[in-house]
């Protein structure tokens, strides 16, 4: 099995959208059930958006204990691309693979609309193909989208151009020190075709596909 794995937790709902967008870029993808533990051969893995376990307790809190998360953590360790989008970002924070936590938006309302983000770090698996300073229009779709980082250790990869949800340092995406694990709140897969309103997200998904292929050993 090679290609990019897209993990399905009970309550995930963006997994097919992610597969659709990645395959449009020629990538090979596999849906991975949250109880699977064999990710051997995968070049990278995506934790997609949605409401894993209904977002009960805390968003991502229950999902981080799914059996699949052990091999996901190993992939992160081994330097392979691990990307969490929206709910996936929340899960990576709960698992403490990424710094900080995501709490309710400042205005306590769900936000579903395109927002502008500025790429401030192109040295990660999700931004390698983007221009530094590039401003991308990508739909946000979250209630717990406010990133807080009490220890101030998060590496910010992209910033909201306007403060939409109160995130510390306007963080829209953060990475681990190595840059192979990235969490992003807006949904690149929802901005992957002009007919849907924007194709700005492609550059991020292209980065992911390229770094996954590059990570083959």
């Amino acid at each position, binding site marked *: 099995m090679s290609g990019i794995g897209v993990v399905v937790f*009970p*309550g995930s*709902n*963006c997994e*097919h*959208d992610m597969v*659709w*967008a990645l395959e449009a870029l020629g990538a090979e993808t596999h849906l991975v059930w949250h109880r699977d533990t064999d990710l051997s051969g995968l070049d990278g893995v995506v934790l997609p958006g*949605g*409401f894993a*376990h*209904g*977002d*009960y307790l805390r968003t991502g809190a229950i999902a981080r204990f799914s059996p699949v998360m052990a091999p996901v953590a190993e992939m992160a360790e081994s330097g392979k691309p691990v990307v969490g989008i929206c709910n996936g970002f929340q899960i990576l924070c709960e698992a403490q693979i990424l710094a900080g936590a995501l709490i309710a938006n400042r205005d306590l*309302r*769900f*936000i*579903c*609309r395109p927002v502008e983000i500025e790429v401030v770090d192109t040295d990660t698996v999700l931004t390698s193909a983007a221009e530094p300073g590039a401003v991308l229009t990508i*739909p946000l*779709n979250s*209630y717990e989208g406010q990133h807080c980082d009490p220890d101030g250790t998060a590496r910010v990869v992209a910033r909201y151009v306007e403060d939409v949800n109160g995130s510390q340092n306007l963080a829209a995406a953060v990475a681990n020190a190595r840059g192979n694990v990235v969490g992003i709140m807006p*949904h690149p*897969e*929802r901005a*992957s*075709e002009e*007919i*849907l*309103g924007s194709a700005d997200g492609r550059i991020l998904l292209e980065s992911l596909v390229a770094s996954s292929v590059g990570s083959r050993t």
Partner: protein
Amino acid sequence: MNVELAPEEDALTEEPGENPVDSDEDLLHRRLGLTDDEYERILDILGRPPRPAELAMYSVMWSEHCSYKSSRLHLRRFPTEAPWVVVGPGENAGVIDIGDGWLAAFRIESHNHPSFVEPYQGAATGVGGILRDVFTMGARPIALWDQIRFGPLEEAHNRYLFSGVVSGIAGYGNAVGVPTVGGEVAFEKCYSGNPLVNVMCLGVLRREQLVLGTAGAPGTVAVLLGAATGRDGIGGASVLASASFDEAAGAKRPAVQVGDPFEEKKLIEACLELYERNLVVGVQDLGAAGLSCAVSEPAARAGAGMRVELDRVHVREPNMTAAELLMSESQERMMAFVSPALVDAVLAVAARWEIDASVVGEVTSDTALVVTYSGETVAEVPAASLTEEAPLYDRPLGEPSWIEDLWSNSLTHMTQPALATALLRLLDDPSLASSAWVYEQFDHMLFLNTVVGPGNDGNLLRIKGTDKALAVSTDGNGRLCHLDPRRGGALIVYEAALNVAMTGAQPRGLVDNLNFGNPEKPEVMWQFSQVVDGISEACAALGIPVVGGNVSFYNETDGIDIYPTPVVGLVGLVEPVPVTPPRLSRATAGMDLWLAGPGGSINLAGSAYEQVTFGHVGGRPSAPDGTMARAAISLGQTLVQEGLSPALHDVSDGGLAVTVAEIAIASEVGVTVDYTDWRHLFSEEPHRFVFAAEVSNRRRISEAAQAARIPAERIGSFDGTDITFRREGARAVLDLATASATCRSALSRRLA
């Protein structure tokens, strides 16, 4: 739970029995909401007094909500046939053929009373319920639409209900993973004590996956899937749906049901896997009347009987009575009918998706529904007696004494207002202003199908893997229906059809949600009958079949009925998907502004202008014109399909002025409109739409209009940063920034 239209049904029509005024409230059947006559009927059917559990079943199954006893007779007048109709009214959802082996299933339903009692959970469980109606048919739900109506936001309680309902739809719809891509929001005094919360769901499926709500052959096993059963909404169906609000508010509160979108999400995926692998004969969702409905309806449809063992139902609370188990409205439950050999496979699928499942019964060769509990027979009734043999009422109709006065009460000799001010005031009205505050709280992009999203007329959803897209518009207008229920009923169908045409699509099927007052009042039944005729006439004129719907009566508070408020959901088909889907935001500087439709006539009756400016609701709306409606629809389709216009908008609430302003605001470009009579700017005469087009398309557009036999003229052009109304000598100017800010903040300002 669904509209019974079976024509062969013998109309043993009766005058509804009224209980004696000195009615002894202790009589169990009365406490359960059954009239003495209905009780007599049960005695006839059983030939003996009913057991408590039997009485409970009859009370919920014969409630207005489940039996449509007051409306069935009228609903039969709907045109329901067309070559592409696969499943008409009577099933959980209507189904139409959209070609190449693809079907579309859709349904609309109301959750008015529960949303009044508890706005968040009421709206949330409304979403859950309509989803189940659609995936019960074998379809994958792809989108939701909400139509919500409240009293004025000046009242704190209305603000509480409005924001609670919106949060409930967002909380459930977003988490269950089905996008809410559109809807309607309106505010009128008459909804103050009585909000309306309707929700429509659309699903798609392959023909071979179609499943019906039938129990199948004797021996078939009934498997209850999903949430554990608790004392949720006991009696909700018969009590919440038939008692009027004033009492309901306090007393019925313990009946509130709590939704669990996570359970529903798992249930959807599990059921879709069951369908894919052909593991079920039939499926029935558990909604109002819960288990009672889920066993009797499928058995009746199969002309069979059923044995049910209540001890096997997985429960949330101990010591529930048989009646409670049969009436419980616990959410997120489905009944699957499975042939014995496949039961293990079905249980395995349930386990994989981490939902509970229990075998609770078996289809029998007779026609009796036999229910046992801890070894005892607690019910033994003819299955069909709960459904097909439910009472059918021919309630008296009476034209309201006041209707003539209402018609003659039109505003005369109004003088021209300051146009900019008048427009700004309309753009600031919560019913006309941008509803972005609402739909930006809903995930409206999931599945990557939303080609034309909220903020436009109809929505357009592509079907991946095909060259097709489905267009949907939901429309209602209580004010017009109050002034003339028959014309109003027709006008909302014409508006929905035109909205759908604004995306290039051809109308294919309609579902309706009839929100009315107390059917025991002759004027309300008259309004109901008139609306049914109006909707039927418009559907006939456009060749649109009615494939399903829902009726909500007793929308009254302290004896005051709401405006008759039918809401229609229209589904259209377009193929191929327009390369550049039309959006209000696509007008650009230098483009012409066109108006298509019957010119001339002016009528401000029921218009937003009279309502907002003078608080006046009176006069009589003009009669719609089917021929003109067809012409407008066909021109709209041509303009989109031939790429002649990137931005079209039908003229509805607020008239030409608001319609044009909405395009300018969405496109962030100014516009200049030439007019002769100011009243033209606010008249809401039907079958008209405006559109933006490149100057180079003028000739082709005129030819298209001639071919469609409908007048079309250029009335202005896009440019600059102002909205300008121009008549020789006179100019009224409203700067776009102000218009836009006012329109976008109208709701949030009132809620802050």
